[in-house]
């Protein structure tokens, strides 16, 4: 093997490499510098960016030998090499200013993009040599360095601040309530330092001695009968240790989160139902050999006709994807009498919408490692959203008791719902069992794209009826949802789509029917927004159009019908508290007006506000009229608006519970650790749990650690889905901390000879504070001392609390279907190029009622990230199938928003607390990505008079519609 001699982070390195190895592989696997990430291996995502001789390059396609003699900088070298004596930085003085500011500004969420992002930013700042950097320059430099979590706003702010152009958090974080010590304060993520230095470990960063590499043979055809599987040649290939098929699955042959219908490995004589179906798995000495082995497996198929759309699937004569038929579920919502409601209406409007299948495009592809411990237990290292369910599913398919399996959660490079289903977990366990050695399966981006469940493509028909005065009399929806080849969470997702399909409105007569259909497309499952993204688009587009018909301002129309405290939802739930929808709307409208006033003042002299020909301005001159466009050159501009709501927690009668274990330690000034199996997918759960515990125990935030996702060490936190973790696990952590405080109070009270009730936990101390103002009376102990007393008394320093959310009712039974809803209003300012049809979102104003902000920094990150993801849903993202074959099989064909799509975002927080939430908090993870899509499409309609009823917006059809004078794209 040739030697590669080069300099890495200032140190000369000589390493033997294969001539066909890439720089990223050498850095990661030969030099152990796993801070450099591989997100795509296609030069698309930028996660693998390193600096070669002063120039940033993507190391995934950079042949290692090309770096002969070069100077390489990786994320691992950034901190040590560029020590910043910035006296103001308190976080970690040896970090590079970029690293410090990424932490401070919340520019780190899942952290997978962070190393590449920092390297790319560093190259920019190195070039600027202290000169101020502009937004435009940042956008140009980061154009092809993707982040799926943050929405880029915090990244741009961090870069400027690192360049000495300080941006203060107070300038852009929305105003939120204070009043506690830790809760409500902006705090950096506990894991941020590891993520900005490259030390953070994701599944592919974990290695075991003797580890083998696994690979999965995919069907490649969407619907077929398997006539033959011959693995003999693969088995004979030197370096191959196991080739397994269906017969080698000792236990349950299928997996699934709700419906167990997804084969672990497809059986000969049985069917494949989508291109990503697994036929065989291989373990070999190297990735390359494993791939070669796959090519040697011979499979004969008899192709079957493909079921390609849910509408076709519903035809009586359609081929059957599953024996039981193509209908996964018919979901029904009904309140009052819709026909009566439509009869009472003065105006009735019915419209049909299409939404696309989309991919989560988390930057970290799936990876799992399985191994057998000396005691013969299975250990699976995986970044999964549902550790305990993974454990149960692995155990079921391996045919062993649950206790024989341990899931060790690694960091997760983004999930967004796409890492809830089983991918490699069972396969690595099977291969570890067959070979007796640790086995790693790392998906390529191509495999990730074709295998894991997507967002449901839907066809939604919305019908609304209203009185002349704007009061809705009836709302009806019919949905077809494409759940693909297997159920995944399809039933749950489409139930949420259905229950939210009448909008956040109090309508006496409502009806919603959904047909969740199996097809031969890639399965669809959970995806941030959980079905509500789709139905919100349909309802909110129709609302604007209905307002036009009624001659009522669309904002007014929404306010006339919006859910309030005391309203009843379409599922019969009476809302008793925490409904901040109107207030969200008020914030957004006020900010929109202020923005318009500014623009008009600025442009008055230029008299730019010429109405667009062909579009009737409904109202005459006034500072701001919703819906009125303006024109500059060949570009039209307008605002659009939409509102939405989204449940928090599983609801629907599910037993929604989470356990949390707390342990207190006497080391240092005293610390606490909180443990739950819930997953951190970038959303900031550790920060929320640490804040809640710190608050209850009066500890500084930094003195609380969080351990997540280990089925041996952490109690079951349930699935990380449905925006439930802040609420459910947050409650579990809070109650655990409260119980611990009680135990500690009793011990301390005895020692200090005061009553337990007089003790206050604050600033890391337990203080006797019995005067009326709560001032300390001198008697006190440090937190650590109290823990020592407990230990001396032989008391346990840990305890577990099992939290169960208030009971909910299944759909169709009335009553409370959900414990809480979050609400939002979004407004988008778009620019439409009338010569090309190109659409840009320039500004977004967003207001969210999330109950209570526990960590405003993490909250804003969820909001900005959600908004930009919503822009992707509206404008760039699409995972089309042709006869069951997905087109976007490489990341080059799947465009998520880049920094150039980042709008200016103005965010407001509305805090209508929910009494059952921890400190009043509800979920935010999903609502932030929901109303943005119809806000954009409403804005487009306002700007150019074309209602785009098919997602994503296609500039091609939009332009042709504009030219042909069509009023819609259907």
């Amino acid at each position, binding site marked *: 093997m040739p030697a590669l001699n080069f300099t890495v982070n200032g140190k000369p390195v000589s390493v033997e490499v294969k001539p066909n190895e890439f720089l990223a592989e050498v850095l990661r696997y030969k030099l152990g510098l796993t801070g450099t990430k591989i997100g795509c291996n296609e030069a698309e995502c930028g996660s693998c960016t390193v600096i070669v001789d002063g120039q940033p390059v993507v190391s995934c396609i950079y*042949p290692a030998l090309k770096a002969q003699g070069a100077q390489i900088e990786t994320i691992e070298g950034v901190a040590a090499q560029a020590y910043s004596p910035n006296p103001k930085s308190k976080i970690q003085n040896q970090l590079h200013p970029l690293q410090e500011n990424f932490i401070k500004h919340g520019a780190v969420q899942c952290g997978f993009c962070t190393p590449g992002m920092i390297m790319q930013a560093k190259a920019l700042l190195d070039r600027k040599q202290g000169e101020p950097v502009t937004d435009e320059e940042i*956008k140009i430099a980061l154009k*092809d360095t993707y982040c799926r979590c943050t929405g880029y706003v915090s990244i741009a702010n961090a870069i400027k601040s690192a360049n000495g152009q300080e941006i203060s958090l107070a300038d852009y974080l929305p105003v939120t309530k204070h009043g506690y010590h830790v809760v409500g304060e902006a705090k950096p993520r506990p894991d941020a330092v590891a993520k900005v230095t490259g030390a953070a470990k994701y599944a592919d960063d974990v290695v075991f001695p003797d580890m083998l590499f696994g690979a999965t043979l995919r069907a490649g055809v969407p619907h077929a009968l398997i006539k033959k599987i011959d693995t003999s040649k693969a088995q004979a290939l030197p370096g191959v240790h196991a080739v397994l098929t269906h017969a080698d699955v000792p236990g349950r042959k299928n997996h699934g989160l709700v419906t167990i219908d997804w084969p672990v490995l497809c059986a000969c004589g049985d069917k494949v139902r989508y291109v990503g179906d697994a036929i065989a798995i291989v373990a070999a000495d190297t990735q*390359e050999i494993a791939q070669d082995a796959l090519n040697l497996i011979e499979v004969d198929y008899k192709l079957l006709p493909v079921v390609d759309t849910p509408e076709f699937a519903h035809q009586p004569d359609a081929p059957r994807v599953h024996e039981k038929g193509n209908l996964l579920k018919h979901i029904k919502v009904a309140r009052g009498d819709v026909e009566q409601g439509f009869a009472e209406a003065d105006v009735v409007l019915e419209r049909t919408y299409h939404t696309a299948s989309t991919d989560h495009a988390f930057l970290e592809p799936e990876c799992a490692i399985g191994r057998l411990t000396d005691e013969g237990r299975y250990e699976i290292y995986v970044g999964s959203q549902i550790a305990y369910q993974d454990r149960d599913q692995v155990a079921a398919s391996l045919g062993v008791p649950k206790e024989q399996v341990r899931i060790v959660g690694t960091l997760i490079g983004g999930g967004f719902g796409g890492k809830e289903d089983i991918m490699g977990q069972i396969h690595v366990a099977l291969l570890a069992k067959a070979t007796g050695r640790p086995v790693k399966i790392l998906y390529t981006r191509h495999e990730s794209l074709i295998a894991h469940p997507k967002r449901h493509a839907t066809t939604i028909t919305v019908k609304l009826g209203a009185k002349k005065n704007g009061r809705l009399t009836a709302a009806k929806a019919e949905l077809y949802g494409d759940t693909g080849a297997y159920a995944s969470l399809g039933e749950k997702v489409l139930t949420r789509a259905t229950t939210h399909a009448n909008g956040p409105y109090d309508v006496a007569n409502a009806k919603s029917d959904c047909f969740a259909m199996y097809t031969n497309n890639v399965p669809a499952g959970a995806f941030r927004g959980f079905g509500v993204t789709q139905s919100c688009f349909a309802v909110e587009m129709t609302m604007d159009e209905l307002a036009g018909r009624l001659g009522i301002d669309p904002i007014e129309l929404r306010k006339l019908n919006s859910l309030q405290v005391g309203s009843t939802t379409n599922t019969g739930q009476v809302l008793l508290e925490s409904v901040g929808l109107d207030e969200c709307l008020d914030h957004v409208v006020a900010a929109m007006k202020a923005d318009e006033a500014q623009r008009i003042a600025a442009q008055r002299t230029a008299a730019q506000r010429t109405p667009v020909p062909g579009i009737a301005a409904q109202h005459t001159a006034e500072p701001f009229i919703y819906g009125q466009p303006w024109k500059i050159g060949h570009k039209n501009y307008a605002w659009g608006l939409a509102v939405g709501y989204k449940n928090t927690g599983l609801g629907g009668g599910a037993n929604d519970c989470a356990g949390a274990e707390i342990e207190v330690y006497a080391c240092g000034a005293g610390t606490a650790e909180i443990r739950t199996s819930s997953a951190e997918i970038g959303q900031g759960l550790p920060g929320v749990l640490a804040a809640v515990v710190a608050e209850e125990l009066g500890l500084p935030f930094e003195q609380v650690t969080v351990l997540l996702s280990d089925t041996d060490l952490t109690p079951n936190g349930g699935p990380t889905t449905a925006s439930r973790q802040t609420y459910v696990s947050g409650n579990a952590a809070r109650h655990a901390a409260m119980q611990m405080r009680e135990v500690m109070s009793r011990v301390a009270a005895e020692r200090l000879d005061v009553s337990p009730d007089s003790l206050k936990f604050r600033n890391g101390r337990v203080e006797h504070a019995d005067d009326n103002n709560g001032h300390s009376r001198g008697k006190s102990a440090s937190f650590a001392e109290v823990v020592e007393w407990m230990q001396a008394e032989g008391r346990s320093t840990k305890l577990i609390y099992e939290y169960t959310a208030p009971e909910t009712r299944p759909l169709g039974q009335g009553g409370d279907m959900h414990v809480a809803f979050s609400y939002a209003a979004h407004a988008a300012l778009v620019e439409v190029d009338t*010569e090309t049809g190109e659409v840009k979102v320039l500004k977004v104003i967003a207001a969210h009622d999330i109950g209570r902000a526990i960590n405003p920094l993490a909250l804003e990150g969820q909001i900005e990230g959600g908004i930009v993801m919503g822009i992707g849903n509206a404008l760039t993202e699409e995972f089309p199938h042709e006869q069951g074959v997905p087109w976007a099989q490489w990341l080059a064909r799947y465009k998520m928003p880049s920094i150039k799509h980042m709008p200016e975002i103005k965010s407001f927080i509305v805090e209508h607390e929910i009494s059952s939430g921890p400190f009043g908090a509800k979920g935010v993870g999903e609502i932030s990505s929901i109303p943005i899509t119809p806000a954009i499409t409403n804005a487009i309609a306002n700007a150019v008079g074309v209602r785009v009823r098919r997602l*994503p917006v296609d*500039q*091609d059809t939009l332009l*042709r519609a504009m030219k042909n004078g069509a009023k819609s794209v259907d």
Partner: protein
Amino acid sequence: MPLWNDYHLPLSVDEAVGLLARYDGKARVVAGGTDLILDLRQGHAPPVEALIDVTRIIGLNEIREAADFIVIGAGVTHSQIVESQLLQQKATALVEASYVVGGPQVRNVATLGGNVAHALPAADGTTALNALDAEVEVASFSGRRWIPFTSLFLGPGKSAIDSTREILTALRFKATGENEASAFSRIMRPQGVALPIMNFAAKVRVLDQQIEKVALAVAPVAPTPFRCQQTEAFLTGKPANFESIDGAVAVLLSECKPRTSPHRATGAYRQEVLPVLLRRTLGKAIERVKTGEVMPEIYKVE
């Protein structure tokens, strides 16, 4: 199967050509690898015995002015082109084209030579070079020769240069001189595919407010790079203003018949934007001649 077995970094053209000869068709030239390595990985190109990396060949990563030609070596990256003051002044269209290729990390390694040798008719660098009437120098075991740019292209992805035996060593074209300027623009689709829906390059000479000479390249309208010769002829001698440009639209649409490419654009859409691109690009070039300001559009987000 490995995608290649040996990786060579020759320092001279002779050495590189010698290596190609030694491997006798089983080796292939690589520059930045941003097309080739992905093609190899995704099975669009067959595995090879060796890759011959031409980016370290001495002299090939230079941009030179020789007589009234500008010569760009095959090792020159898009980043070098974007930053070259010479090219910003005298080949503005090319700078604008190189600027939109990929992101900075890709531009730091991807070469203009690779963009051309890959032979996609709609590659951005290719369209700009087409309007600049470029020529290409090819080196093989039998020596070096200059050939006209257009003769390189045999069909989509099919190049007259056999990269297993020959090396594209340099590209050259006439610098825009007095009363001349060039410009490039494109329209992208926000969903999928990095290739443009359509790109357009123009070079123009304006004398006494009249279009004295004009070159217009647009893609994709044919399997190989296309020059709008009828439109060029129509515009020659016309006043250098938007009326003339608008007057040329009918001719442009009659000679360019863009087709539908699935997942990229419909023919109808391309027909709508073709005149827009003509207007924007030629308009920009004429404006540059008139004002003498040639600052390329490289400091804005596309």
